[in-house]
C-alpha cells in the first residue's frame, strides 16, 4: 500500500515541477513573441488596412441558438466593425425562442433565395433573409444541429475568402477585425489566426459599441478574468510559437475559407467543436508527409469579449463540457500523439495537452485526496501539508502576476486602479476554492465522458440581456 502512496507522491511532485517549468518556458517564449509582434506594427498600419480596397474581405459567422436577449446587440456590434469589406452571417440554429423574430423586426429582414458557392452537409436550411438597410447582413434559419453544424451552414453562404467564427454572446472591439486580419495581409502562409478572449461581464455597450470596459461584478467572474489573462496572455502566445496551440477559442477564430472547406468544416457532432477543429487544423498544417504547409498565428492585441458564467452551477457545467470536449477531440486525433510525422505538434503539443491540460484536474484532485488521507492516517502532519499547499498556492500567484504584468504592458491593462486591485484580489483568492471547484467539475466531466459516455452539451448559459455586459 505504502509503495503505491510513495509512487503517487513522487509522480505528483514530478508532475508539479515539470508543469511549472513548462509554464515558465511559455511565459518567456510568450513575452518575447509579444514584444516582437508589437515592434513589427508600423505607424498607421491599421488605418491603412481600414482604408484599402485590397484588404481581404471577411465573412463573419455567428451561430445562435435561443439568443433572443443578445443577438441584436451582437449583430450590431459586428456590423459596425471598422473594416473595409465584411459580411455578417447569423445562423438561427433552430431556436425555440424569438431569436429569428427579433432579428427580422430590428433589421427589417426580407426573405431571399440564396445559395452559396459550396455546400457542406448540414441540417436543413429553412430560409435565408437579408436586410435592405444592412446589405452585408445575412440571416440563415435552419433545423437545430450543434454549433458546428450552424457554422457549416453559414460557410455555405459565405462569399469571402476569410471566415471569422465567433459566438452569439461575443463582442469585438471596433478595430478587432483589423488586428485579426493583419497577419493574413503580411504573410501568405498564414491559414488561421487566433485572438485574445476576455470576459464581457462588466462591459457597457451602446448600440453594439463598447463605451466602457470594466471587470465582472462577482468574485467568480473576476477569477475567470485572471484565468483568461493567464491562458491568453502568455500561454497561447508561447504555445503558438512552439507549434502547439491546439485550442483556438470558438469565440475568435479567423481562418481561410478554402482551408476550412478542405478540412470538411467543423465536426457537427463535436462537444467542443473549436478544440476539435484546431487539432485537425494543426494536423493538416504540420503533417510532414503531406507537406500542406501553412502557419497558425496568435494575435495578442485582437480582443473579443465573451460572457462568462457567474453562477457556480453554470460554471461547473461549462467546465464539465470543456473537459469532455477536450478528451473527445484528443481521442479523435490520437494518432498525432508522440508522432514525429507532426513535428513539435505531435512530439510536444499533443502530449502536453493530454498530460498537462486534460489530465491536470485529475492529478490535482488526487493530490488533495491523498493529502487528506495521509493527514487522517497520521502519516503526515499539518505542517507538511500546509508547506506543500502554500508552495502550490504561491506558484499560482506568481504565474498569474506574470500574466498581469504582460497585460499591464499592453493596451489591455485594467481601466482603473480599483479594477487593478480587484484583479490582484482575484489572484489571491483564486486558489482558495474557485480553482478547486473548476478542477472538480472537470474531473466529474472526465468520469462522465469515460464511464457514462456522456456527449451532450450540458446546461445553457443564462444571458444577462440587452444593454449590459455581454449583450
Amino acid at each position, binding site marked *: 500500500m*505504502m509503495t503505491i*502512496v*510513495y509512487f503517487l*507522491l513522487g509522480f505528483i*511532485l514530478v508532475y508539479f515541477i515539470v508543469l511549472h517549468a513548462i509554464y515558465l518556458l511559455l511565459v518567456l517564449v510568450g513575452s518575447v513573441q509579444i514584444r516582437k509582434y508589437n*515592434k*513589427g506594427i*508600423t*505607424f*498607421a498600419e491599421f*488605418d*491603412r488596412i481600414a482604408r*484599402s*480596397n*485590397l484588404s481581404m474581405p471577411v465573412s463573419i459567422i455567428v451561430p445562435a441558438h435561443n439568443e433572443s436577449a443578445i443577438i441584436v446587440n451582437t449583430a450590431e456590434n459586428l456590423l459596425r466593425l471598422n473594416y473595409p469589406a465584411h459580411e455578417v452571417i447569423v445562423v438561427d440554429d433552430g431556436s425555440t425562442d424569438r431569436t429569428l423574430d427579433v432579428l*427580422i*423586426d430590428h433589421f*427589417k*429582414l*426580407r*426573405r*431571399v*433565395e*440564396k*445559395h*452559396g*458557392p*459550396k455546400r457542406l452537409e448540414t441540417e436543413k436550411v429553412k*430560409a435565408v*433573409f*437579408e436586410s*435592405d438597410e444592412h446589405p452585408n447582413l445575412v440571416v440563415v434559419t435552419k433545423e437545430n444541429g450543434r454549433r458546428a453544424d450552424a457554422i457549416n451552414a453559414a460557410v455555405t453562404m459565405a462569399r469571402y475568402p476569410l471566415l471569422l467564427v465567433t459566438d452569439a454572446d461575443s463582442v469585438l472591439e471596433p478595430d478587432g477585425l483589423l488586428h485579426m486580419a493583419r497577419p493574413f*495581409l*503580411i*504573410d*501568405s502562409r498564414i491559414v488561421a489566426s487566433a485572438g485574445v478572449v476576455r470576459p464581457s461581464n462588466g462591459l457597457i455597450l451602446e448600440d453594439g459599441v463598447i463605451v466602457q470596459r470594466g471587470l465582472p461584478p462577482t468574485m467568480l467572474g473576476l477569477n475567470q478574468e485572471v484565468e483568461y489573462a493567464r491562458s491568453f496572455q502568455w500561454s497561447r502566445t508561447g504555445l503558438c510559437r512552439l507549434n502547439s496551440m491546439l485550442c483556438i477559442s470558438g469565440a475568435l477564430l479567423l481562418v481561410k475559407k478554402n482551408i476550412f472547406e478542405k478540412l470538411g468544416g467543423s465536426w457537427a457532432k463535436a462537444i467542443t467543436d473549436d478544440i476539435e477543429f484546431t487539432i485537425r487544423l494543426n494536423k493538416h498544417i504540420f503533417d510532414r508527409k503531406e507537406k500542406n504547409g501553412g502557419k497558425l498565428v496568435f494575435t495578442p492585441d485582437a480582443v473579443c469579449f465573451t460572457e462568462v458564467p457567474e453562477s457556480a452551477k453554470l460554471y461547473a457545467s461549462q467546465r464539465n463540457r470543456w473537459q469532455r470536449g477536450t478528451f473527445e477531440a484528443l481521442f479523435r486525433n490520437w494518432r498525432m500523439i508522440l508522432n514525429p510525422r507532426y513535428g513539435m505538434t505531435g512530439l510536444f503539443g499533443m502530449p502536453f495537452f493530454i498530460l498537462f491540460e486534460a489530465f491536470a484536474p485529475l492529478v490535482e484532485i488526487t493530490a488533495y485526496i491523498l493529502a487528506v488521507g*495521509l493527514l487522517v492516517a497520521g*502519516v*503526515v*502532519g499539518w505542517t*507538511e501539508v500546509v*508547506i*506543500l499547499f*502554500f*508552495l502550490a498556492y*504561491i*506558484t499560482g*500567484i*506568481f504565474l498569474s*502576476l*506574470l500574466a*498581469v*504584468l504582460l497585460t*499591464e*504592458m499592453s493596451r489591455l*491593462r485594467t481601466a482603473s486602479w480599483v479594477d*487593478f486591485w480587484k484583479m*490582484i484580489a482575484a489572484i489571491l483568492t483564486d486558489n482558495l476554492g474557485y480553482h478547486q471547484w473548476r478542477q472538480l467539475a472537470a474531473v466529474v466531466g472526465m468520469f462522465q465522458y469515460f464511464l457514462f459516455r456522456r456527449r451532450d452539451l450540458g446546461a445553457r448559459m443564462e444571458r444577462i440581456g440587452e444593454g449590459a455586459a455581454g449583450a
Partner: protein
Amino acid sequence: MDILGPEILRIATNLSVLLTLLSLLLLAFIIVIRLRSEWRATHSSRYRHRVEPLVAGFVTGRRAADEVAPELGRDPDEALALLMQVSEHLEPSDRPKLQPLFALLPVKTDLREQLKHRQWEKRLAAAERLGYLGDHGTVTELIAALKDEVLVVRFAAARSLVALRTADAVDPILLAFDVPGELNERRTAEILHEMGSDAVAPLLDVVRNPGGKYSESVLNVASRVLGMLQAKEAAAPLSALLDHPEFRVRLNAARSLGAIGDRSTLTAAAKLAADPSWEVRNAAVQAIGKLHGTAEIDRLVAALADSAWWVRFSAAQALFSLGEPGITALKTSARDAADRYAREMSTQVLTEHGALPSGAQS
C-alpha cells in the same frame, strides 16, 4: 514526516519563501510600470492638447512655423509622433504643408544612420519616419533599404518613397517586391496606388514591354495599379495583355479594364468570358458589367450556366447592373433557363435586389 523526507520539505519551504519574495517584487514592478504608463499617457495627452491646435493653425495658415517651433523642440519624439498622426489624417495633397514643421525636428541624421542599424525594429522605425520628414535627400538611402533582409522594412521604405512622390522609385519598388504570390502583389499595388498619377508613366512602361526585364508578377502589379488609378491611357496596352499566356496576367488586365471603364475595350474583354480559367471568366463578366456592355448580354446569359459559382454570381450581378435589358434577361433565365443553376442564380440575385417578390416577408 518520513514519507516526504526532510530534504523535500526544506526545499519546498525555501522555494515558497523565494516565490513569495519574487511575487512581492513582481507586484511592485507592475505598480511601477502602471504608474509610468499613466505618467506617459498624461504627459502625451497634455502635450498634444497644447501643440495640436498650433499645428492645425500652421496647416490652415493662421500660424507661422516660428510659433510652433519652440513647442516641437521641447519634446522632439512626441512632436514627431504627433506630426505623423496629423499627417495621416490629412488628404495626401495637403501633407506637404507639414514639411516645414518636420524639417524643424532634429532627428533626420539619426534616422539615416538608424536605417543601417543591426536591429530590424530600429531600421523599420527609421524607414517609416523618413517618409514623413519629406527630405528628398534621403531617397538614395531609402532605395537602398528596399534590399533589406526583412520584408516589413522593405515595405516601410517603399511607403516612404511613395510619400516622397519619387517617380524614379517606382521601378526599384516593383523589382524589390518581385516575388511570386498574390499577397505581395496586393501589398505592392496598395503602396504604389498611394503615389497617384505620378506612378502612371513608369507603370505604363512596364505594361507596354511585357516581355522585357519584368516578370509576370511585376506585370500584374503594374496592371492592377493602373486599373486602381483609372488611367485611361493604359486601356490599349492592357487590352494587348488579354492574350497573355499566363492566366493571372489576363485576369489582372481584365479586372483593370473594367475599373478604367473605357468602352472601346469591351469586345476584347468580353472574349475572356470563354477563358479556360474560371477566375479570368469571372473578371471578364465583371468587366462587362462595369463597361455597361448591353451588347454582350447573350454572353452574360450564357455565363449564368457556368460551372463555377462565382462566374454565375458575377454574371447575374453584371446583368442586373445593366438595367432594364439585363433585368429582363435575368427574369427570363429565372423562369425558363434549361440549366437549374442558372435559374437558381438568377432568382437569387433578383430577390437580393428586390426585383422579384420573395417568399415569406417579415
